[in-house]
């Protein structure tokens, strides 16, 4: 009986197998890269807002504290967005005719809220708690970046589970004192301060990676 396969068949099989593994490997690398790419995580994205609000001007320039507008950040899971009245505390006196602020005046006049676009959009199955972070030494800057340098607000952190866990597993380098929670450009703590802060806020990282801390 003649040979079913010629010697060349071996080469073809090897080639096909190599191509298969290579494709799988490249595909997997591509998938992982895609998953961490700004395209999917949204890092750097700057959604268009009804009013081109500048944190750079308000925070960096005027030095308004974050909590002046995001009032519930220390009491609730949700940091809170300022109501139209809050904007109008100043803008009923300043820039009263600026075209840029027309939507704000319109909102007050018509009693219709402004519709802002969410910049930091967590998955719906993640229950993030602002209060738990800002009352335990995690500053605004740690997740939101240097908003005092953002003319338009954009996303700075990837907000992936890996990124959350990095800090939940080793929070010490990301901590700061209660007085500096809303500060921008705060230097990272040295190792002594880290230990002190961990003690002061009574942080126990071993419990912070339980599933039900964020998912329920």
């Amino acid at each position, binding site marked *: 009986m003649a040979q079913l396969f010629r010697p060349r068949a071996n080469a073809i099989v090897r080639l096909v197998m190599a191509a298969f593994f290579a494709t799988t490997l490249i595909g997997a690398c591509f998938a992982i890269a895609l998953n961490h790419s700004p*395209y*999917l995580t949204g890092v750097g994205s700057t959604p268009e807002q009804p009013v081109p609000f500048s944190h750079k001007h308000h925070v960096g320039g005027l030095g308004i504290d974050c909590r002046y507008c995001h009032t519930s950040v220390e009491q609730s899971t*949700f940091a809170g967005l300022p*109501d139209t009245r809050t904007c109008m505390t100043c803008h009923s006196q300043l820039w009263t005719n600026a075209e840029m602020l027309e939507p704000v005046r319109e909102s007050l006049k018509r009693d219709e809220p402004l519709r802002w676009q969410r910049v930091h959009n967590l998955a719906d*199955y993640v229950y993030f708690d602002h209060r738990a972070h800002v009352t335990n030494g995690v500053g605004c800057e740690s997740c939101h970046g240097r908003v005092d340098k953002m003319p338009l607000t954009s996303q700075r952190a990837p907000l992936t589970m890996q990124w959350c866990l990095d800090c939940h597993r080793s929070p010490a380098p990301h901590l700061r004192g209660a007085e500096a929670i809303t500060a921008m450009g705060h230097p990272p703590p040295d190792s002594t301060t880290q230990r002190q802060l961990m003690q002061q806020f009574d942080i126990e990282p071993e419990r912070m990676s339980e599933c039900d801390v964020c998912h*329920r």
Partner: protein
Amino acid sequence: MSSVKYWDKSSLEEPLYGKHGTGYWRTLNELAESAECGEQPPGEFPDPEYLQRLPVSRRRVLQLLGASMALAGATACKRQSPEDIVPYVQRPEQQVPGRAEYYATSIPIDGFAHGVLAESHEGRPTKLEGNPDHPATLGACDAVAQAAVLSLYDPDRSPAVRREGTITSYGALLETLHQRQQQWDAEQGRGLCFLSRPVTSPSELAAMEHLRRRWPKAQWFMHDPLDRSATYEGVKQCFGSPLEPVYQFGRADLVLSLDANFLQSQPGALRYARDFMARRKPENSNASFARLYAIESTPTVTGAVAEHRYGMPFPQVEAASRQIAQAMGLAVKAPPQPVLTDRWLQALVEDLEHHKGAALVVPGDQQPASVHAIAHAINAALGATHTLVEYIPPAIGNHSDPPLASLAEAVSGAEVESLVVLGSNPVYTGAADLDFRHLYQRVPWRLHWGEYNDETGQLSHWHVPATHPLEAWGDARAYDGTASLVQPLIQPLHEGKTALQLLAALSQATDERPRELLQEYWRQQSESETFEHNWRRWLHGGVIPDSAPTPVSVSLRASWSRRLPEPSPGAEALILQLQPDVALRDGHYANNGWLQEMPRPITTLTWDNAALLSPQLAKRYKLKDGDIIALTTAVGRAEAPVYVLPGQPEHAVTLALGYGRTYAGRVGNAVGTNAYTLRPSNEPWATTLEALTPTGEHRTLALIQNHHSIEGRDLIRATTLEDYRANPDFAQHPAPSKSLYPEPGPPQRQAEHAWGMAIDLSACIGCNACVTACQAENNIPVVGAEEVARGHDMHWLRVDRYFSGSPDKPDMVFQPVPCMHCENAPCEPVCPVGATQHSADGLNQMVYQRCVGTRYCSQNCPYKVRRFNWFDYTSARARHPARPAVQNPDVTVRSRGVMEKCTYCVQRLNEATSNAEAENRPLADGEVRTACQQSCPTRAISFGDIADRHSQVSEWKSSPLNYGMLEHLNTRPRTTYLAAVRHPNPAMGEGEP
């Protein structure tokens, strides 16, 4: 191989002591099987021929599985869709976005106020809990009140004013009313009739009184399908005036129920259940343990709790009460035939005499006036009057108005020109012989005000939508007469009008503001200078203090027994007994999915009202569960499926009211059988069944109980108080000492708390309030009858009901079964993707996002407490779409293909621990309460930190009654049970019920 000895059989058997011989069974089939001993359970693998016949081949399934798995990942390849954040224009003062607010209000059920605290998220009510300051609830909440929040968002509620079916404006109605008023004024209201539901609201009664005075010739009728007139009639026979009895179970050592389901179905049931079950604490060796005797026509939760339950057809209850009265020396004519056995009667009467001053007889709301009269007379003889039973002026202010039958007569006599129907649905709930559907259409002008454009609304010239209690200003009285306010949590979602608004329109033809109308009434009741202050206090507390009427002093009239009717000879015929449905009441709540799917206590039936038959009767007619029978009474015929219920009296068939609606809405239409078509107006609760004919048809009943087989395991432990005192450790079975597997060590991580739960089986009355509370808290979907019948019910908590003893006189025990949060959880190691994990504080966590739906965990769970989303039960395409507005924003809404289960309300745990941390204080015991625990009327559930030796749950767990279910499996459940203890009368003897 024989040299390898994995275990020694005898050593394993010993720890399993008590596995058999407990004698509990859940269904008659199970009992029959254990008697036959050894019918094999169906095999693991189906017959190959069966596989061949399947429309989809096994290979095809695998192909599809592979393809869907490959494609499943692709859905993640996109960014999250953008979201808006919409702040307020002006934020309400003190509101913190993201934090729930609580308001005290009341939900009227059958007219009686149930005080609740409504949880509101950014102005959106999502959950109702009992108001601890309200005397009718004391913090508990029954299923019907819980479910009111779902009805608020019911898209089938009537949205607009309609004139002959066409949508019109409220203004158009006011115009018509204006013209009508002139005509009614001219004739002092002649030809004008009002038909109202039972009303306890003081302001509404005042507005009605105003109309009565304005049109003195107008006629007022009151229609209560759950007719309680016998209650007032009976009291009147004894004491001369119609009064409402209010019972003080907290002072009773012995209670006899004469067909009264006072633990679940009477006004005040929540309070009664709390008071009575608090008197039955076995641990408390100093206090006495209250005993309950129940004579009842249909098995209810009250009978299940009773030490001695005597089942008999409805008409015989009167004979039994005569026997008891006579044995106690009251001058009552004896029944022609005794119904109670001498021994039972003697033991009962001796016990009653022995407990004089602490014994109480409670007649059932549905029983005739004579039973009430006899019960009150016995209470007087026992010295219970004024101490254990007080009498107050009826909270229902219009109880003396003539009933629907009188209205029917007036319509037949062409006396009725205009008819205003206030919140009632007589076309559906009218007795069959009145034929109100046709009579109603003979009235020349008909106006209907109700939450739904129901059967009556459809046939009316005008239909005005009513507001839901959560969007209305109003008031109502509780069972004891305490007035409480109803305040809105939200603006009316539709064009609903409150009762006061409608009555104002009838009187002045103007559209008034509901808040002002209510305030106007209460301003008159309060001193004007303090009114504003009081008003705020009342709204805040939910109760108007000191508004309960003082009990009336009564004395038994000498002639009371002469007013009793002649004792009727015991009927030999079959009796049809009607009863209010525990979930749907008279049918008003038929369009509520939570209530339709709530397993009815005792039967565990959902989405249906089966005819309850005794095993003997079913045997005689060769009927089994689900067989359709035709029932014929003197006034009508209806078909219903059979449910064979152990404990049902042999010659009585029971059918619940409230089903078979035609205009309830998408959920409630055509569910079950309309029992009103069998109901004669003169015998509303029991009538002779002229024929019972099997039709030969069959339908599968949507039952919960049969889903998970007991297989003879030792799940329930119960004993008598005597045995418990003699042997307190009876529930402690030897713990296993050997395991086939290496034991997991103590958790590596440090835990601050150790969560645990204990459930007191002595206190559980099986009312299922916890099941609905869990459903509301945890966004549990409604799946529908078909899915329930397939075993796909989604309730995280089920209340198992066990029978023991003989099928005709069984004892019953209830066992709520949530996730056990086993320390050694069998579900965890089998998950291939790690979707279920153990937390250091003892929670068995379920991560929905990781779950790929292998269902291995559920297979490996010995308690069968995991639920799988077989289909999409929540989206808009589902059979019963979830209503996003009612969902708890703190809990994930699960999608298809995901396993879920009880989380110990982890969202509440997280919130409470986070609050304590923010306030820099330790978490207090009792600060976190799970939804089931909170709603429980009898406080049968305790939850807390078992690492804290002083917490309530630790104390419960240190009781000798504490045991873990299936602990011989070495799962080490965190949820444990306190064995049930009963206190039977030793004089009753064996074989007596």
